[in-house]
Structure formats: structure tokens, C-alpha cells
């Protein structure tokens, strides 16, 4: 397509900006939600002083972060020390580009000429590979930062992060392979479209889902796999030496990663913007509002459903964090290499067998 500013371009730009803003907003309020969820689970109230119900707390935290001293240790490698949090933030923000947040927006530029713009920043046909690549790059932020700090604890945290991410990426990839075998496409939009209505992948891939979500916890460095941070052993791990907004970037990147991986779980296993009865809703809306408005409203409902699913998994992350203690390092490695990888391979074989001989595995067992 030749580069020109037309309606489709503007709609796309608005969608991209919206996705970017919403990702940041959700990450911001995840910090608030985390503290509230922690408090509620521990029978407390949580932050409630800044604004009504403490809703301005994230802003107060950000202001606090900005006004703290930005300290660089004298023995640290200065440029790498600065690069670390930047890389973390950059890779965290890049992943949300390929996630389909909704179906599509229709806009009638001229009579008979209707633009159909997907609610997604870019629909690349290697979406999942892209996410995997960027997520793997994300560990560089932690490694570079941890190494550049010139501190034993930071270095240990960085090493832990690296080996943990490598170990768990394998089983995560294998869990995805089973899905790819079923759908035959790497594009996340195709995968979501194939889960139309209530035909979600979770019903076909329950084992794959458990493996994927476990690995997602490990990739995001969340409890019970938060060994790179590990404040009780490593005084904060890779970000021991960081202060001010650099620390803020690391923490913020973690929350963005959490949201993005929740969105990935929602799109890969829980049907993305699909929900049971969506065709009926769309037909009703189109009948009531007309072809274009009805379609757009149906897309909006789907997007809201998608956010509902994603936010549930963000909550799930927090719920698990305040339930489980941290794994010991040998337990982590045992679980990754001796538990999840063989299980994921068995899952791939089972899926292959099911595709060949049965119909979808669980559904056929139910019938």
C-alpha cells in the first residue's frame, strides 16, 4: 500500500495509540491492584490515602520515583547500567503490538467504499515467533543491568534470570507447538479466529495450558519463580543497585510483561475476543444499529470481553503471588527440565495422535 494519510491510516494510528496507552494504563494500575490484592488476601485494606480508595497511589508512586536520587555506582559500567532498564522497558512495550485486541472496525469512507481495520497494531503472520523473540530479548535487560551493576548479588540475580528464562522458554515453546499443530498458523489473529464462539483451545489443550501458564510465571519472574529478584536472598537481585526511575522502569516492565502475557494466555487458550453467543449479539446489534455501527459495537463488546479475560489473568498472577512461597533454585530447575519439558513433549505427541486418529482430544473423550 502506498503511504498516504487516509481514513484507514488514521483509524490504525488511533488504534495503535490506544493500545499503547491502555497497556501503560493497565500496567500502572496493576501496581495499585497488586497492593490492593495483597492487602485483601492478608485481611488488610491496602492503600486508601491518595485520592478516593487510594486511586491516585500509582501517580504518587511515580512522582516519588522521579524525585529520588538517580544513583550510578562508581564501579558500574555506566552506559550498560543505563541500557539495562531501557532494554527491559522497550522489549516489554514491543510485545503488545501483535496481540489482537478485537475483531475489526468498519468505516465508510465513501458510499460503497468500506474500510475494515483490524483492532491490532500489526497483524504479522509470524505473531507468536515475534512474541517469543521479543520476550527472549527481554532477559537481556535484566542480564545487562545485573552485570553492569558490578555487584555480586546483582550478578547472581542476572545469572538466575538467564538460566531460568532459557529453561522455561523450551517448555513454553513446546506447549505452543501443540497449538500450532492444531491451528496450522503462527498468526495470533488466525489462532483467535479459529476459537470462534466458545470453541476455545483450553478445552483441547488443558495440559498445554497448565504448562504455558507455569512458564509464563517463570518468564515474568513472578512468584513462585521470582528467583532473579529474591529480596530475601539477593536483596532485590538484578536491581539491587538501581534507584529512581531506572528502578521504576524495571518494576514497570514487569507489570507490562504481566499484562501482555495475560493477554497472550487469553488469546491462545481462552478465545481472545471470542465469547459464546457472539454471533447472536452481532446479528442483534447489526439488526438494531445498521451494518457498520452494529459491527463496530460488536467489536467493542468483544474487546471488552478480551480485556475482562486478560485482567482476570493479571489478577490470577497476583493471587498466586500472595499464595505461594518461592521455589528453591534446584526445585525450579527440576520442575523445568525434569517435569515440564517431558510433559510438554508428551503433550505434543498426544496432540499429534489426536489430530491423526481422534478428533480433538478432550472433546472426543467427553463424547
Amino acid at each position: 500500500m502506498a503511504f498516504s494519510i487516509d481514513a484507514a491510516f488514521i483509524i490504525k494510528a488511533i488504534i495503535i495509540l490506544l493500545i499503547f496507552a491502555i497497556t501503560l494504563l493497565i500496567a500502572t494500575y496493576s501496581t495499585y491492584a497488586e497492593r490492593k490484592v495483597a492487602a485483601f488476601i492478608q485481611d488488610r485494606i491496602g492503600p486508601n490515602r491518595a485520592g478516593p480508595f487510594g486511586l491516585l497511589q500509582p501517580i504518587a508512586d511515580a512522582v516519588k520515583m522521579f524525585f529520588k536520587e538517580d544513583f550510578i555506582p562508581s564501579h558500574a559500567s555506566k552506559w550498560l547500567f543505563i541500557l539495562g532498564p531501557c532494554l527491559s522497558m522497550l522489549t516489554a512495550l514491543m510485545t503488545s503490538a501483535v496481540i489482537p485486541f478485537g475483531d475489526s472496525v468498519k468505516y465508510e469512507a465513501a458510499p460503497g467504499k468500506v474500510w475494515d481495520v483490524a483492532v491490532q497494531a500489526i497483524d504479522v503472520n509470524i505473531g507468536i515467533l515475534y512474541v517469543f523473540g521479543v520476550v527472549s530479548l527481554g532477559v537481556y535487560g535484566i542480564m545487562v543491568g545485573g552485570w553492569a551493576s558490578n555487584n555480586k548479588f546483582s550478578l547472581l540475580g542476572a545469572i538466575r534470570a538467564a538460566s531460568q528464562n532459557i529453561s522455561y522458554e523450551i517448555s513454553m515453546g513446546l506447549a505452543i507447538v501443540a497449538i500450532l499443530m492444531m491451528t496450522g498458523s503462527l498468526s495470533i489473529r488466525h489462532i483467535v479466529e479459529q476459537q470462534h464462539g466458545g470453541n476455545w483451545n483450553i478445552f483441547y489443550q488443558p495440559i498445554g495450558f497448565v504448562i504455558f501458564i507455569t512458564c509464563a510465571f517463570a518468564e515474568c519472574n513472578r512468584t513462585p519463580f521470582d528467583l532473579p529478584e529474591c529480596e530475601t536472598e539477593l536483596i532485590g537481585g538484578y536491581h539491587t543497585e538501581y534507584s529512581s526511575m531506572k528502578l521504576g522502569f524495571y518494576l514497570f516492565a514487569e507489570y507490562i510483561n504481566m499484562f501482555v502475557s495475560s493477554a497472550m494466555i487469553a488469546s491462545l487458550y481462552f478465545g481472545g475476543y471470542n465469547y459464546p453467543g457472539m454471533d447472536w449479539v452481532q446479528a442483534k446489534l447489526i439488526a438494531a444499529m445498521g451494518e457498520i455501527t452494529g459491527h463496530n459495537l460488536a467489536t467493542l463488546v468483544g474487546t471488552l470481553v478480551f480485556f475482562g479475560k486478560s485482567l482476570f489473568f493479571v489478577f490470577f498472577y497476583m493471587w498466586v503471588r500472595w499464595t505461594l512461597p518461592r521455589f528453591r533454585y534446584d526445585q525450579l530447575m527440576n520442575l523445568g527440565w525434569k517435569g515440564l519439558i517431558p510433559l510438554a513433549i508428551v503433550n505434543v505427541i498426544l496432540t499429534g495422535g489426536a489430530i491423526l486418529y481422534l478428533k480433538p482430544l478432550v472433546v472426543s473423550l467427553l463424547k
Partner: protein
Amino acid sequence: MQLTNRSKQVSNKEMTFAEKIYLPAIITGLGITIKHFFQKKVTISYPEVKKNLGPVFRGRHVLKRDNQGRERCTACGLCAVACPAEAISMVASERQKGEENLYREEKYAAVYEINMLRCIFCGLCEEACPKQAIYLRHDEFVPVFTERDQVIWGKDKLAENMNNRYLRTAWTREEAHEQDLKGIVAQPRTQL
């Protein structure tokens, strides 16, 4: 010897399959935490909500007056002697003619100061006082101070306000418990 009966025998036996895959234990744990998520919170939002600390709580001091509004203190100095933290100091003075409505007896404390940084709120001054002149209030704290000149409290802060008298509802824990059983409600007083 066993102090509580909550101790549990642990063993190092090999984990069963259900334990090895962690999931059943994780789901049980998630159930427990979500139960707490919806439970009533135990937090008391302090400045807005104040808990009744009981009738024998030892809070800030008050220099009592009698029913006619006369100061009871005779500056005998027993409280200062009893004070283990040496927080109390006073200057005695003789009552002049025409001051009978201010001071109950011929001698009174012209200056009576308590250093609130030294005070440990033990209540020994209260027990030492033969005139029932000093009490530690059960319903008010010493508020936070941010300046040095707020630390030493003189008679201006300590003397009882006749419009808002300090009345204690019970003198011992047992008495308070008895009142609770009879259904007598201790009156909460929040005004400082």
C-alpha cells in the same frame, strides 16, 4: 514439655505423585487465599476510627480538679519521686487570699511539667498521688509532636477542662469486665 498443642510432626518421606506435581496443594492454597480476599478486614482506619482501648489504658496525663473546679494537686512531689523516668518536675507555691476557688488546699503547684519524651506511661505517678490529682487518661493519646517546644507539657495542657471533664468508667480490668457483663457501655470520648 509442650507449650501449645499446635505442633506438627514432620517427616522427610518421599513425596507422593500428587505432592510432586504441586497442583493439588496449589489449588488448596489458592482456595484459602481467595477466602481471605472476601473476608472482613481487620484493619482499623486509625485517625477516622478509634478503637476503645479499655478502661485501664494509660494514655496522656490529666491534672484533675475537684467538683468545684479547684486543682487537687498540692505539689507534694510524690509523683516526681515515684517517676522512674524522672519526667515530672514542679514548683510549689502558697495559695493567696482570694484564690480559694482555684486551689483546694493551701499549697499548690505553680508550675507542673511532664516531659513527654521521657514519660514511659507506667502510671506510677497515678498510684503515688495521695490527692488523686494526676491520672493517665484511658481515652486519649499524647499526640505526635514535631517541634521541641511541644515536648514538655505544662499546666496549660495538663489541667482538666471543666467543660469536658475526664471521667473514668472503671478502675480495674475486673471492674470493666463486670460492667461488660451487666451491659454498661463505657462512654467513648474522642475530643482532644
